[in-house]
C-alpha cells in the first residue's frame, strides 16, 4: 500500500491544544517557504469541501456520536489525503498540515472510541517527517481561548461528553483530557516539542532551524521561480 512507497515530498504537521498558537506558527512557516520559492501545499483539519457540509450539519444538529464523529473526520481526512496530500508528496512538495491524525487519536480517545480502532482507521496515512507539538500549560491555552471568545462551540467545548452544563467548565475538563492524551502521543510518536509560551518570533526561528536541519530544502525549490517580481 501507499504507506510503504517512498515519496520525494516531505510532510510537516503541527499539533497542540486550541490556543497553543500552532496555526500561527505553521502560517509563518508557510509564508517563509513560499516566499523562498519552495513547492509547498498547506492543508487544514476538517476542511474537505465535500465532507465538511455533512460534518457541520451533524455538529449543528448534534447528530454525532463519538463513533460517527470519528468516522466523519476520518472521511474528511481521507478525501484530502487521497486527492491532495499523497499526490503532492509524490510530486515532490513539502506538505504542511495544520493538525494531522494525532488530533483524531487524542480527541476520539477522549470521547471513548477504542484506541486501537482509531489508529487502524488512519493506518493508511504516512507518518510525518516532522511533527511539531506546541506545548503550553493547560491554563495558558484555556485563557487564550476563553478570553478571546464570547461563545464556545458545542463540540469544541466537549459539551457532548456531559462533563458540565457550563461551556467554559466543560471546555476546561475536555481540554485537560486532550492535553493528557497529547503528552502520551508526544512520547509515542516523537513529536518535536516547541515551548509555546515563548514569543511567536522566537518560536518561529526554532521551527525554521529544525525544518532546515531535517529537510534538504534546496531540493524543493521550483525550477522556475514563481515570484519573478520579488526576485532581486
Amino acid at each position: 500500500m501507499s504507506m510503504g512507497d517512498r515519496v520525494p515530498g516531505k510532510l510537516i504537521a503541527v499539533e497542540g491544544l486550541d490556543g497553543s498558537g500552532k496555526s500561527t506558527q505553521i502560517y509563518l512557516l508557510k509564508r517563509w517557504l513560499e516566499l523562498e520559492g519552495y513547492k509547498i501545499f498547506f492543508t487544514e483539519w476538517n476542511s474537505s469541501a465535500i465532507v465538511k457540509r455533512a460534518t457541520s450539519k451533524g455538529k449543528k444538529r448534534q447528530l454525532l456520536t463519538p463513533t460517527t464523529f470519528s468516522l466523519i473526520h476520518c472521511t474528511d481526512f481521507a478525501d484530502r489525503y487521497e486527492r491532495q496530500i499523497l499526490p503532492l508528496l509524490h510530486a515532490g512538495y513539502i506538505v504542511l498540515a495544520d493538525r494531522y491524525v494525532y488530533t483524531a487519536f487524542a480527541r476520539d480517545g477522549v470521547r471513548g472510541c477504542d484506541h486501537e480502532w482509531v489508529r487502524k482507521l488512519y493506518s493508511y496515512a504516512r507518518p510525518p517527517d516532522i511533527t511539531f507539538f506546541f506545548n503550553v500549560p493547560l491554563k495558558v491555552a484555556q485563557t487564550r481561548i476563553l478570553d478571546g471568545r464570547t461563545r464556545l462551540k458545542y463540540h469544541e467545548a466537549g459539551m457532548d461528553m456531559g462533563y458540565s452544563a457550563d461551556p467554559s467548565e466543560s471546555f476546561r475538563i475536555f481540554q485537560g483530557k486532550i492535553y493528557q492524551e497529547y503528552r502520551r502521543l508526544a512520547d509515542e510518536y516523537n513529536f518535536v516539542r516547541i515551548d509555546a509560551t515563548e514569543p511567536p518570533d522566537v518560536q518561529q526561528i526554532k521551527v525554521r532551524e529544525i525544518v532546515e536541519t531535517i529537510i534538504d530544502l534546496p531540493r524543493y525549490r521550483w525550477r522556475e521561480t514563481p515570484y519573478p517580481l520579488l526576485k532581486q
Partner: protein
Amino acid sequence: MTRTKAFYGKGLPNVNLESLTGLLIAVEGADGSGRSTHINLLRDWLERRGYPTANVGLKRSSLVSRELEEAMQGNILGTRTLSLFYATDFADQLENRILPALRAGFIVLADRYIYTLMARAIVRGMEPDWIQEVYSIALIPDAVFYIAVSPEILLERNLRKHAVLDYWESGMDMDRSQNMYGSFIQYQKKIQKQFKQMQKVYGFQTVNGNRPPRGIQKELQAKIESILANGKMFPVTEKTIQVQPSDHIFDLKNG
C-alpha cells in the same frame, strides 16, 4: 427472545448488549437479486404475526445520506474516502436506528449490511484487514442471508427493469474504458468471489436466487421461523465471533 448479542470487534462505546432483545436479520445480494422484494415479503409475513419490524438499508442515514448521494453522482471521491463515508452512514444508522429498535424488541430487517460495503471496498483495492477493522464496530446479526444470483441472470433482470445498467453496480468507476455489458459481468463476479470468501468467516447462509421468488421466500421464512421458535440465533458460531481483524481472510487477487 434471543441470545445476547455481540460486536465483531471491540464495538461501540457505551452499549449494553443485554438490552438488545430484538432480532437483527440482514439480507445481502446484488441489485436485481430480489433482495428488497423479499424483505418486503418478510415484513408482511412478520407483521401479520404480530412482530414489530424496522427497515434499514444503505445510504439512509440522516447524517450523511444526501452528501453521499451527491458525491456519488459526481464520482468525485476516492475509494478510501467513499468507503469511510459509507462507514459513517452505517454507524449513524447502527446507533440511531438499529440499536434503538433492537432495544425495543423489534425485528430489524437490514437491506444490505456491512458485507456489501466490505466487498465493494476490497474489489476496489482497499486492504481487507483495514476494512474489516473499520466495520468491527458492527453488531453481529442473528442471521445473514446472501441471495446469490448468477451475473448473467442479474444482467437480464436489471436490463429488463431499467433498460440501463447502474454505473457503480457495473464497476464502471474502476475502468471507464470498458463496455458496460462486459464490465457488469466481470464486476459482479468479483463481488461474488468476495462474498464466497466472507461466507467462510462470517458464517452467513447462501440462498440460491436463480429460481422463482416463491421458493426463495419459503426458504427464508423457514429459516427465520426456526430462529423465532427456539429463541436461538442462527449460525452465529463462536468461531464467527472470534474473527481477528488481522487475519487475512480475503483473497486480494481478484480477477
